[in-house]
């Protein structure tokens, strides 16, 4: 189980209605169902992953978040979770707006492209960074819109959504991100976790 799942779970209230966008094999869905008794749905693009979710008894719709979120009415969910996939969308701005339309709150996690290893890779090797959390080469990566923790904070001001809580994951430890430590967290955080609102 990914280390951020526990953190995501802590951000979600008990008995809430939750949509997991890009729910993968349903690990987070199961975790939230057990720990938070949430009413959870998933949307997943891979047929194989959907099959795995069905085998776990999870309610999942095969679909593409970029096009298929529009079927949900406004405020259908208390929380919408988007785990490490924002960077893979053609239009992240539309996706964020859709998340906040169908959900009251959204939890977005991003692999931090500002991490020192990434910077080190590009600076000294002169090649596109390949790290544990970003294992693809430039020519086969699904990640077409990489961003840093700092970029995401700026993004919130540009497209106008509120960041309710921002956390950084560093060596499996979690810490708050604030204005005074942003430069530091942007350098050492492997993952940014944001609870956002309209």
């Amino acid at each position, binding site marked *: 189980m990914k280390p951020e799942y526990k953190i995501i779970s802590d951000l979600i209230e008990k008995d809430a209605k939750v949509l997991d966008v890009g729910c993968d094999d349903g690990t987070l869905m199961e975790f939230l169902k057990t720990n938070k008794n949430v009413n959870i749905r998933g949307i997943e693009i891979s*047929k194989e992953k959907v099959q795995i979710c069905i085998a776990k*008894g999870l309610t999942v719709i095969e679909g593409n978040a970029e096009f298929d979120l529009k079927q949900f009415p406004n405020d259908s969910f208390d929380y919408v979770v988007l785990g490490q996939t924002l960077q893979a969308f053609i239009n992240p701005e539309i996706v964020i707006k859709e998340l906040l339309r169908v959900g009251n709150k959204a939890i977005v996690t991003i692999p931090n492209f500002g991490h020192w290893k990434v910077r080190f890779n590009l600076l000294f090797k002169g090649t596109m960074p390949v790290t544990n959390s970003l294992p693809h080469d430039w020519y086969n990566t699904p990640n077409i819109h990489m961003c840093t923790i700092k970029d995401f904070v700026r993004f919130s001001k540009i497209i106008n959504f509120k960041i309710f809580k921002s956390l950084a994951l560093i060596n499996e430890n979690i810490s708050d991100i604030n204005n005074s430590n942003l430069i530091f967290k942007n350098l050492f955080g492997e993952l940014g976790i944001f609870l956002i609102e309209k």
Partner: protein
Amino acid sequence: MNIKQNIKTLIVEKPLKLDCGQTINNFPLAYETYGSLNNEKDNAILVFHALTGDQFVTGINPVTKKDGWWSYAVGSGKSIDTDKYFVICANVIGGCMGSFGPSHENPKTKKIYGTDFPVITINDMVNAQINLLDFFGIKKLFSVVGGSMGGMQVLQFISNYPDKAKTAIPIACTSSHSAQNIAFNELGRQAIAADHNWSDGDYNSKNIVPDKGLAVARMAAHITYLSKKGLQEKFGRKLQERDDLKFGFDADFQIESYLRYQGSVFVDRFDANSYLYITRAMDYFDLVKQFNGNLSDAFKNTKAKFFIISFTSDWLYPTQENKDIVIALNAVGANVGFVEIESDKGHDSFLLNIPDFLKALKNFLDKSYAEKNL
């Protein structure tokens, strides 16, 4: 064939007002069951058959002596596991396997109904079958399942009886018959009507059958159940028991021979007038219109857990039409899962041995059944 033998029949005494305005009562509803109903009576699954199906879902069909139409999916240890669930299936009204249909005698005229039989709808079929629940003392079905026209019945059933099923699985279907669907059905009906033997539907009194017309109807329909890729791979341009073209109109190609065979075996087991009535019922099916253009309203009162399944190569009831049902369900916050199964076998996929499909069906049912509070 003696079809009365081996056929279980419920005589529905309660009057049923049909959509066409007529009321029927004391009519026969032929059904079959598999597995056994448990003491809690919470393990019953009502399966709805498609256009040319019947109540003999699995095992050997006692009338045709062939495998039941859903033998891959239903049976001991299968997706719809008869060791675990009590499976009920009824022949639709308008059909020809024992349920009230156009080949029955009109008690008033003492003549076979033929085209005097009332035009029936998917709604009528479902309203007839609800009587089976009372008959078996079942308050709530565990599931309603069906593909194609069977899927339409699933949708209509939930819409009519929102609290009578815990889960619903409409497969490869639509909420509203498209112009293309109607067009293909009309082609079939016109083929039957063009057969001189049809005699305006009165062939029974003359002891003849419009077998040529019905066979052509079946051949045309059969093409729509397959995919171009599937046909090409199975038949290509292969010749039928000959080395070269014969420069005539016999079946040179295997695909011709195959279709002719499909047509010829169909006329032995199916009634031409039933074919007219059932295709008409499908054409009239428009759940969107029933709810004044808002399909979501059909499902707003149900707590049933839905699982929608479509197939990539199904061009008769394509994925988008299945997805429209998912969208309508999501719009009312219904509990709905959806998967599109990869298959090049076309619309017929739901009847075939498609492991991904059978696995998804089994997993959904078994996991849902394990959820006690559903």
